[in-house]
Structure formats: structure tokens, C-alpha cells
């Protein structure tokens, strides 16, 4: 199966090149994809943890989120 291609346009001459990515470039893109997925997973975990901590704190203080915003605003 051929690798994905990229387009390079020389605006002065109008030449358009369709270039197949090298195996190294394909591997680099795959690494970028994996890193992105991992980062998003970590962000999701952190967001869930913060939401849990916030809910626990509000419950301990006996106030709603809106009341907390009023106090901090």
C-alpha cells in the first residue's frame, strides 16, 4: 500500500508536486498521533479528577457551584 502523499505548490511557476511521504515521515506522523491521543487522555483524566475534587469540596462546604462563583466573583 503506498504511503500518503503531500502537495507542494511553487506559486511563481505554478508547478504542483504530489510527493509520497517517506517511511520515516509516516512513522513521525504516527508518533504525533499517538502522542496527541496520550495527551488528550491525560487531559481528560485531569479534568475528571478536578471535577470530582470540586464536587467533593462543594459538598463539604454545603454550597452550590453558583454560590461559589458568587463568593469568588
Amino acid at each position, binding site marked *: 500500500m503506498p504511503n*500518503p*502523499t*503531500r*502537495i*507542494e*505548490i*511553487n*506559486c*511563481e*511557476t*505554478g508547478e*504542483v508536486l*504530489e510527493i509520497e*511521504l517517506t517511511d520515516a*515521515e509516516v512513522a513521525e*506522523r*504516527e*508518533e*504525533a*498521533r499517538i502522542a*496527541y*491521543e496520550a495527551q488528550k487522555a491525560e487531559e481528560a483524566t485531569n479534568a475528571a479528577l478536578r471535577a470530582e475534587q470540586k464536587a467533593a469540596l462543594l459538598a463539604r462546604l454545603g454550597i452550590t457551584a453558583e454560590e461559589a462563583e458568587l463568593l469568588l466573583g
Partner: protein
Amino acid sequence: MPSTYEPIYTTTLNSAQADITFTSFSGYTDLRVVAITATTRGSQSGFGIQVGNGSIDTGSNYSVTRLGGNGSVAYSERTSNQTSVAMAMQPTRSNFFIDFMNYANTTTNKTFLITDDNAASYAIRAVGLWRSTSAITHLKIFDTDGFNLIAGSTFTLYGIKAA
């Protein structure tokens, strides 16, 4: 009278592509990219912008500040020392506008304004920075997460002259 606002190049992708790079667009004061594109990924991906002088700069020389809203929540975020300026990209077509002011000067770092609109997902406005005082001679747009720009995507590069 010389034309103030000129299309330098326009293209519609016949097939999905990993990226598109424009070169050799000297002779203008400012540049505008109008891109209507989407990712081949089945969910949100990243719309990447890289520039360079002589070649594309893949170093950690980019930063971006974004203001966005998804219809429920507004947010602002900033990232620095990145290898590209990354926006969001959906599997459905979005409007992207990228404005480079004074792109060919050799005294300032390069700031550019970005619009990223997808009515089903968000409205985003951002400012990107390439930390280099070199003139921009190369411009690349790509999917940051290893996916492709869909077939049928359109890209137009406009040049704007101040005189």
C-alpha cells in the same frame, strides 16, 4: 494600476493529502489564506500551520493564543514553544482564514491572525507567532495528528500589496 489583492494560487485537492505547502510567493505586503477543509479522521483532529524561510521550520518556535466558544462554554488558552501553530479541525468542513501581515520583513517576528469556524462545533479566533525575523517563503498546512486533509478541500493563497 497594479492589483492590490491578487490570488496567488488556488487549488482543490483531488485526493486526501497529508499536507499542502506553498512556496515562492514574494512581492506582496501581506498574505491571506482561505482554506475550506476537514480531516479524514472520524473525530476532531488538529489543523497545523508551519512556516519557514528556505524550508519549513519544524523547531519549537511557534506559539498561539486562542479564544473559542463551542456554543455552551467560552474559553481562552495559550501554548508556547510548539513545533507548529495548531487549531482544531473537524471531519466536516470548516472555514479557516490565516492573515500574515508584513510576512516578508526581516526585522520582526511573524504574527498571524487565524479564524477557525465550524458551525456544528465552535467559533475560534487566534493569534499565532513564529519566532523568527526571517521572511516567510514557505507555508505549510497539515493535520497535526497524523491524519489527512480531505479530498475536495480548497486552499487559496492571496497576496495583498500596500502600494
